């Protein structure tokens, strides 16, 4: 089965464009000459307060999301907005922020310079969004590394003409790619090049191949928010009627007395992390307990949500 073409555009250097991508449509972002980084934002088309969240995406898929991964929205929505259907180069980044005018002024002395924040903002303005709405970017065709000392670096890239990333929309989204404005960094090998944006209707086979993701009670919608109104003024003013309603507060501890046989006590003393917990046996045992639980029952990376579908 072949795809039905919806649109085909070229993004010139220094530009970006907002595209309405309807659920079930595929957006391909393709290298025209090769070696060009593309910054990317995505919003729920019907509620711009839900957007692609690099932090959530990073915890699920790591620093370099690629083919087979999802683009997630922020807590407490945590919906899969898009699915990466294909990725011929395989180097994308959710570690670095978008470049900004500040960067080029502070580090290079430019008064005006192409930069992803301003390009994104200008492209999003077509849909009424402001520069404050630009979110952390998903950086396509961007090679980054975390070094052993914990710092992050950008390296040159080797994508070629024809390399592409394809996103399948899992809900109606506003998808905004922009040609990264960094021409004096390694990001795009010190040059700005155009990219091609093509949109199709996905085939039934492509839709059927998307893995199922959990649908959970904790994924809240605005009507479940204690404050569901979007704030429309800029100044922050305290609500005198505010009464905190934090979850599961107060946190109350209960003591369990755990009797150990001499043999278990000996094993415990060998196992307890005295360097961390000193002579606090309770803390050491708690650590052993939950470390065991993680090994035995946790079906996701530490700190990441599980993608195990319940249906």
């Amino acid at each position, binding site marked *: 089965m072949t795809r039905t073409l919806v649109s085909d555009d070229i993004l010139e250097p220094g530009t970006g464009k907002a595209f309405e991508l309807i659920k079930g449509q595929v957006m391909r972002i393709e290298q025209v000459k090769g070696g060009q980084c593309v910054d990317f934002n995505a919003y729920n088309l019907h509620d711009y307060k839900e957007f692609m969240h690099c932090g959530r995406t990073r915890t699920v898929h790591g620093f370099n999301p690629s083919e087979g991964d999802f683009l997630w929205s922020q807590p407490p929505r945590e919906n899969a907005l898009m699915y990466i259907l294909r990725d011929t180069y395989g180097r994308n980044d959710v570690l670095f922020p978008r470049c900004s005018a500040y960067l080029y002024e502070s580090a290079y002395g430019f008064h005006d310079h192409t930069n992803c924040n301003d390009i994104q903002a200008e492209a999003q303005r077509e849909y009424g969004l402001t520069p404050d709405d630009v979110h952390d970017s998903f950086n396509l065709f961007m090679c980054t590394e975390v070094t052993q000392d914990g710092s992050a670096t950008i390296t040159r890239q080797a994508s070629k003409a024809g390399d592409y990333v394809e996103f399948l929309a899992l809900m109606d989204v506003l998808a905004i790619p922009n040609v990264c404005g960094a021409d004096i960094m390694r990001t795009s090998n010190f040059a700005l090049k155009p990219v091609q944006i093509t949109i199709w209707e996905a085939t039934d086979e492509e839709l059927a191949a998307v893995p199922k993701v959990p649908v959970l009670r904790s994924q809240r919608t605005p009507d479940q928010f204690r404050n569901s109104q979007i704030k429309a003024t800029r100044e922050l003013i305290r609500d005198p009627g505010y009464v905190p309603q934090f979850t599961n507060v107060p946190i109350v501890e209960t003591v369990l007395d*755990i009797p150990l046989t001499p043999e278990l006590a000996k094993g415990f003393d060998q196992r307890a992390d005295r360097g961390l917990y000193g002579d606090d046996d*309770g803390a050491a045992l708690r650590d052993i307990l939950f470390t065991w639980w993680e090994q035995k029952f946790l079906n996701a990376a530490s700190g990441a949500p599980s993608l195990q579908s319940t249906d």
Partner: protein
Amino acid sequence: MPPEQETPNRTIRLSLNQQQLELLDRTVERGPATSRKELVLLALSDAIAQGGAK
């Protein structure tokens, strides 16, 4: 040399909050132990059996 005496059992006071207890209770429901204490002892036994790095 004094006659060998049996070492008395030792008790560890394990503080857990309501959320941690809930996780233990849900784990007990899955069947590996019949009580919170038994689950803790199972975790400790398994950890000791695994040995290796802490």
